[in-house]
């Protein structure tokens, strides 16, 4: 789960694409929108224009952070995500641009 005992995990290197189309989503790479409720994922990168990515990063959507989907509005979106000690709701179109790491490194969890 997210930050037991207040441990925050951060990766210092980040990958924000200023041009979203430059790095296509690798086939098989999962996005935040594909996580089930309660299933944790580690954010790898934000496939969004830089200023939008920065805004989300200020809210805690940073590469290396654990994100856990929580409840959603009826119809499945927007969905609330638990990230960096708070809860933030995103629409599916935004969540599907947040790419997760291929494997949930157990050392990170």
């Amino acid at each position, binding site marked *: 789960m997210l*930050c037991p*005992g*207040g441990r*925050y995990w*951060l*990766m*210092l*290197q*980040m990958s924000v694409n200023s041009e979203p189309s430059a790095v296509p989503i690798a086939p098989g790479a999962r996005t935040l929108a594909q996580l089930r409720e309660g299933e944790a994922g580690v954010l790898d990168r934000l496939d*969004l*224009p830089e*200023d*939008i990515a*920065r*805004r*989300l*990063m*200020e*809210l*805690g959507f*940073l*590469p*290396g952070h654990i994100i856990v989907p*929580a*409840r*959603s*509005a*009826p*119809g499945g*979106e*927007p969905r*609330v995500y638990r990230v*960096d*000690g*708070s*809860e*933030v*709701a*995103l*629409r599916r*179109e*935004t969540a599907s641009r947040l790419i997760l790491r291929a494997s949930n490194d157990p050392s990170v969890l």
Partner: protein
Amino acid sequence: MSECHDCDGCAVAVAPTPAHKGARTHVVAIIGPPNSGKSTLFNRLTGLRQKVANFPGVTVEQRVGKAKMNGASNHHDVVLVDLPGVYSLNPRSEDEQVTRDVLAGNMPGVPKPDALLLILDCTNLGRHLVLAAPILSLKLPTLVILNMADDLKSRGGHVDTAELATELGSPVALISAAKGQGVEKVFQFMEGTSAGTTSLAPPRMELPVLQDIPRCRQWAHDIGTGAAYRAPAPPIWTRRLDSVFLHPIAGPLIFLIVVAGVFQTIFTGAKPLMDGLQALIQTSGQWIEHILPPSIFRSLLVDGIWSGVGAVIVFLPQILLLFLFIGILEDSGYLARAALIADRTMSKFGLQGKSFIPLISAYACAVPAIMATRTIENKRDRLATILIAPFMTCSARLPVYTLIIAAFIADRPLLGRLFGMQAGALLGLYVLGFVAAIATARLLKSSILKSERVPFVLEMPPYRWPTLRSLSLRLIDRSKIFLRRAGTVILLVIVVLWVLENLPVKNGQPPEIEHSFAGMIGHAVEPAIKPLGFNWKIGIGLISSIAARETIVGTLGTIYGKEGTSESEGLRQALRSDLSPGGAVALLVFFAFAMQCMSTIAVVRRETGGWKWPAIQFAYMTFLAYICALITNQIVRSGIFT
């Protein structure tokens, strides 16, 4: 306050007041992320000695107040400036730009702050401390306030404030703004800075490169670790309540009940209060008429100002009730959940979840609805909501609709006995306004308000009990704004309209309305409105209805010499014999679309920070009303439907 037109009579002077007897204004700015309890602290420190305006030229709200400093040693006035909630100082939004400008002393009319209060939510210190980096790099005396101390404690969190103060090189105060715990430390800090006795210590931890968010976040994490920060356990009650309020079935049901309850209360619950206020205004008007000798000034005072301003003040109970509800919803945290539930539907119209409550409120009155859009952080969505809100069928349209429908539409059963033609026509007008609103929203979002795909981001604050203190301050605040309006712009328009209707004087008597200036204007505009099926009498009515839509009913009563109410059978007959059916239906359509309400125009000016948007809105709505009324009249006249 160079640009503030709202505060002529207000108690707090913000401009660097000329030094009188050695006193000097000491300016302290409050800054913090959204949901950190900034406004609660501001209210705590200033109480009622505050006022709300907009920063010049922008839609960002500016709250300024005098701190309630006590102590004999205090020779300085401490003025507090509440800045918008921001996560960083990167100027990407209007809020961040305003915050930067104020902190740098570049905001016209706002003096550069002498000291800062940085307020952070200590239940989420890791993320909130990120804002400390750019703030501390400004090298101004800063008190770092850790708010929500009660939550931190009850949920098992911990922080060493002394250690944190050493690391940051700034004093740290652990407080609960909602409960008032620890607030004295904030006053002590302001006393120290205003006396000039506070010195800056260099931070032990070097500040990170501000542009690099992951580095800043890591810095905040290291600071927290150094100060033995232990994050509190997740809020159990919030999770439990969310499992009900965001339940797939119970959630939407509760949402509908809440919305219906709000709607019902502002519509019908406020009615006895409004009727009472109306009666009070009428009785007092008659009393004034009784004690003053008859003169043209008595007429101006009683028939013009008293009843005109009274007609606006009557809406106060509705506005207060709506803001009581919105206050409870917002302070408790439910508003964010309601916005989440409404978002999918609203996004189909190019809007977002937070537009829902304001738009529903606009069915009662567009004025409080537009004031309620302040809960929408996204500026473009907020502007779109403001621009479409007056299309919603407000209660001031009802007297006009009732009169015309009763006069021209036979009450034949349409769907069974309960739902007749008249009810159908009324429903049709509601639908018409709604369709115009969503069509306009789509038009706006695909043209001038085309946003650079700003994503919908909604923070879910934990549930909290709303405090009586914050609710009552909010109500007082909104009433002040509304009444100031009634006393300034609206008063002026009423006097002008009265002059038009009562001059030129003939033999010391006011003229027949046909020969008054208003009548002359009515005749002058007749050629322009004739294609709509309106005559000069309707023209006068339209001019008078600029004050408020329902005024046309009284004006038409005066013109036709009948009782000026929507239930008046005499007035209905007079209209039937004077107006064509096409003109009558066109009049309904005109009222559905036109922005015939100076209170709305005034509040849009205030909320958007200038005349540009109300001017565009008025022109657009009037144009739409004219064209649609023209088409309606031509269709009805051509006899397709007969």
